[in-house]
C-alpha cells in the first residue's frame, strides 16, 4: 500500500443539505446512498455544524467510507464512498 496517497475517486452524485438541520442531512444521505451502487461516491454539502460528528458516526455504523471531510466558509463538504 502506498503511504500518503490520496484515495482517487469520481463523484457520482451530490447531495446539497445546506440549510438543513439534524436529522435531515443524515436522513437524506441515507436515502441517497440507498439508491447508489457499492463503490459509488457521493459528495455532501451541509451547514449544520452537528453534521461533522453525525456523518462520521453514520459512516462508521453503516459500513460506508468517509473519504474526506472539510470545511470552508461555513460549508462542510463530505466525500463518502458506499461500502468499505
Amino acid at each position: 500500500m502506498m503511504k500518503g496517497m490520496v484515495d482517487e475517486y469520481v463523484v457520482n452524485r451530490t447531495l446539497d443539505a445546506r440549510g438543513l438541520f439534524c436529522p435531515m442531512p443524515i436522513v437524506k444521505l441515507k436515502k441517497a446512498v440507498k439508491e447508489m451502487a457499492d463503490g459509488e461516491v457521493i459528495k455532501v454539502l451541509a451547514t449544520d455544524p452537528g453534521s461533522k460528528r453525525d456523518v462520521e458516526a453514520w459512516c462508521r455504523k453503516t459500513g460506508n467510507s468517509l473519504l474526506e471531510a472539510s470545511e470552508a466558509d461555513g460549508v462542510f463538504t463530505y466525500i463518502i464512498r458506499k461500502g468499505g
Partner: protein
Amino acid sequence: MAIIVHSGTMDKLYPAFMLASSASALDVETHLFFTFWGLSALKKGGLEAAKLPGLMRIGTGMMKGRIREAGVPTLSEMLAMCKESGDVKIYACSTTMELMKIREEDLIPEVDEIVGATAFMAIALDADIQLFI
C-alpha cells in the same frame, strides 16, 4: 430502540420523532409506543394540533414559525419520513384508547398496531435502547 411516547405536546413529540428518524438512517429498528397523552398525537389531526406544554402553549405559533424558518420538518412530515424508512413502527396503547374514548377509526393510518403494555415490554426487552419521553 423502543420509546414510550407519553406526552402529546410538541416539546416531547419532536425529540421522539427526531431520534426515530435518526435511528432509521442507521438502519436501527425503532418502536414508538404512544400512551396516555401521547396517544392524542395519533388521532387524526393530532400532530397538527400539538402545542407547547402548559403556559408555554401561547408561544406555539411562534415556535412553529421558528421551525419553519429553520427548515425543520413539521411533526406530520417527520412521521411520514419515519414511516417511509420502513424501520419505524407505531403502536397505540389499547388501555389509553379505552380511557380516552378513542376508537380505531379515530387514529391516523400510520399506526401499525394497537397493543397493550405487555406486548410493548416484549419488544423493549429485545431493544438495546429504551427511552421514556
